[in-house]
């Protein structure tokens, strides 16, 4: 995405709107509210202060260190003093909040306002020790000749998607970043979606800003602005509300949805279009499911796929269940896959009920590898397949909807019947009866004194 943003202006029409409408300066953006240790703070002020004080302090420290170095040259090795470092809470801060609320944007806008360059690393980069060092440490430590010449352009280091550090690929990344914070010559801002136990060492010493999603009215204003800009009038206010509700404060999600809808097929029902849209974080699952069914050939590969994934396994195996028939179409393969998946489900249940955590490895291997590798005769399905959300969430206990409940109450005035009997026996009959003709529907609903909503549920 960011690659595209750097291209010249004339490709602007093809740019993702998220980049096109990314605010340039903090003045033009809707600032999300933030909290530090439970106290509400002004994010723009805090960030500007942080950068300013950083450069003030680092200058003092550098001068001190210069003196120390000069002193060290004059004395024997034993008497040498150690160079001093900036305390970590002054060198780096962490922005923590749900995706798409403007964490990255605010860093770029801040850099723009203070005339700085952003050096960014995110989850798309490999973040092993070596790679990180290569990319960052040069920037951070270099006090080369160029720095004096271009002193007006300072640098700001953005380590985005910190919580995306996982698995074996990013081994050593956390100590590297900790080390980096200790020796940096430039301010560092880390962004993260959620608190992760494994990153405790990192979080220990730095200030944590909890960034909150924008209020819905704010999102609504921005979305309306964009629609005006793009000359789109086909979306009603209700549609827009639906999109905003669905994204739960994720502004990026809203903008992506808007672009998706405006460029999608026109004849489709707008509502359906909105419901069919998917978000960045689910995109990861989509790819994962496709890879699992179409690319994985060995258990090893299946394992590394689930290992790497950030998706909660609670949900992942439901995704596998939902999409299994899309990718497998020989009955033998389906049955073999389900043999493994159903056993995985049983094991998972036992783990949850009896805390039999020793069974967990089987669970992983069965629902991922066990399913993907159950293809016996047929080759993997080729080409693009649509991955869908797990539609069917079973709660285990039965529940009645509001209109069903009120209808049963009304029926009970005339005909004594229990809820369960009503739902399993009487209501299905009423539905069949009422769909037969409008007249029937009218007489029945008049007799039971049903309101419009209840009437509709009978159709």
């Amino acid at each position, binding site marked *: 995405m960011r690659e595209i943003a750097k291209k010249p202006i004339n490709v602007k029409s093809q740019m993702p709107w998220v980049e096109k409408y990314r605010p340039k300066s903090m003045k033009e953006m809707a600032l999300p509210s933030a909290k530090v240790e439970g106290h509400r703070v002004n994010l723009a002020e805090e960030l500007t202060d942080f950068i300013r004080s950083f450069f003030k302090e680092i200058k003092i420290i550098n001068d001190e260190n210069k003196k120390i170095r000069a002193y060290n040259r004059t004395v024997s090795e034993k008497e040498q003093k150690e160079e001093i470092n900036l305390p970590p809470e002054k060198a780096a801060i962490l922005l923590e909040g749900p995706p798409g609320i403007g964490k990255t944007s605010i860093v770029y806008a801040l850099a723009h306002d203070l005339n700085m360059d952003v050096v960014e690393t995110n989850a798309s980069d490999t973040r092993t020790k070596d790679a990180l060092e290569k990319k960052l440490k040069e920037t951070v430590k270099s006090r080369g000749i160029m720095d004096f010449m271009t002193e007006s352009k300072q640098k700001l280091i953005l380590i985005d998607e910190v919580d995306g550090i996982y698995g074996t690929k990013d081994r050593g990344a956390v100590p590297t970043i900790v080390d980096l914070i200790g020796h940096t010559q430039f301010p560092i801002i880390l962004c993260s979606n959620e608190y992760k136990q494994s990153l405790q060492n990192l979080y220990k010493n730095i200030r944590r800003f909890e960034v909150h999603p924008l209020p819905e009215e704010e999102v609504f204003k921005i979305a309306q602005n964009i629609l005006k800009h793009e000359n789109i009038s086909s979306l009603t206010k209700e549609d827009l509300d639906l999109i905003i509700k669905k994204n739960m404060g994720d502004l990026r999600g809203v903008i992506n949805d808007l672009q998706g809808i405006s460029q999608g097929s026109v004849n489709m029902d707008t509502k359906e279009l909105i419901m069919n849209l998917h978000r960045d974080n689910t995109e990861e699952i989509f790819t994962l499911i496709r890879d699992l069914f179409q690319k994985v050939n060995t258990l090893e590969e299946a394992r590394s796929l689930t290992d790497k994934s950030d998706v909660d396994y609670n949900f992942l*195996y*439901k995704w596998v*269940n939902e999409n*299994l*028939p899309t990718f497998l179409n020989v*009955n*033998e393969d*389906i*049955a073999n*896959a*389900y*043999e493994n*998946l*159903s*056993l995985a*489900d*049983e094991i*998972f*249940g*036992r783990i*949850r*009920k009896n805390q039999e955590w020793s069974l967990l490895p089987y669970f992983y291997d069965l629902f991922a590898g066990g399913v993907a590798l159950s293809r016996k005769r047929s080759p993997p399905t080729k080409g693009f397949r649509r991955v869908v959300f797990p539609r*069917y969430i*079973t709660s*285990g*206990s*039965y*529940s*009645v909807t509001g209109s069903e409940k009120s209808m049963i109450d009304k029926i009970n005035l*005339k*005909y*004594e019947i*229990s*809820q*369960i009997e009503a*739902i*399993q*026996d009487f209501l*299905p*009959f*009423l539905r*069949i*009866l009422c769909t*037969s*003709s409008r007249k*029937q529907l009218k*007489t*029945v609903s008049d*007799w039971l004194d049903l309101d419009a909503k209840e009437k509709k549920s009978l159709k």
Partner: protein
Amino acid sequence: MTETIPIWRIKYIPTILEEICGRQDIIKNLKEIIKKRNFPHLLFVGSEGIGKTTIARLFAKEFLGRYFAANYKLIYADEPLTEEERNLAKSESYVSTSKIGSIAGKRITTPAFIKVKVKPFVQLKVLGDAPFKILIVKNFEVLGANQQGFRRLMEIYGNNCRMILITTKVSGIIEPIASRCQLFLISQVDFQSFRELILNISQKESLQIDDSVIEVLYNLSEGKISRAIDLLQLCSLNGKNIDLDNLFQNSQKFRIDIVRSLLLLTLNGDFPKARELARKIISNYKYSASELFKLLLEELIKLPLSKYARSKLINLVADADFRALDGMDSDIQISALLSKFCLFSENL
């Protein structure tokens, strides 16, 4: 009655014991009891939907006469408690510290069902000139171990309130309860009485129906009179003359037939469609996975299959039901069963 009731099963619901279709011996017994003004706790046993509750209610109504409304209550053991009722049960289980005794300040656990639904009724005194109150508990076997709570209730409050317990499975009733009750086996309605009833309704609704059609209707409805009347009403929408085609066409719409078509879909090896239908059944009828498995099992027994195939398929249903007990996502277990059926059908 001036208004006409648009739903026949309600329109033709019996209003006095004599109107009950068939089962004259039982009705005679109950009439005797009403004359004697006394009876022990009763236990009604019979298969689903044949009219146990209707009989019990009419009996209570005639027994209590004009004090019926004040002294009668019908509760469903399988109906989940509402949030309010559960909270009520919780708050009442706390014994105040101002009370004397070892349980002061502690929580006592009586089953919430008995606490909020049964006790308040049985503890209240009889109103009017009735010998005692009557409490009907439907689907009593669902209470399981909570039936124990009824033992003492039946003795302590027995003088004040008689109970009629209704169940489809006598094996689900614990021994101490069964021994405290007089057992009534409610049989399915016999064909002759059924025929009279249907002819009677047909006459009132001016329908034409043959004996042969009535016989099929009798078999299709499996002794459930309300279902037979439902079917009859649906058929009447297509014309006044009820014939076999009409009957079969409408019976397709009923749930048990949906389960049958689900089974047939799997035996044709069409997994995606079968899963679609299974989900529809679950969401429309609010069955639990276990209930769906039981319905499948019932249908399996009726299908013309080889001995080997039948036992193999039953084995698969049992396995799925077993796994669903521990599993977290019953949709997976249902899908798994359907997929195995589909595979099995290929080798049939």
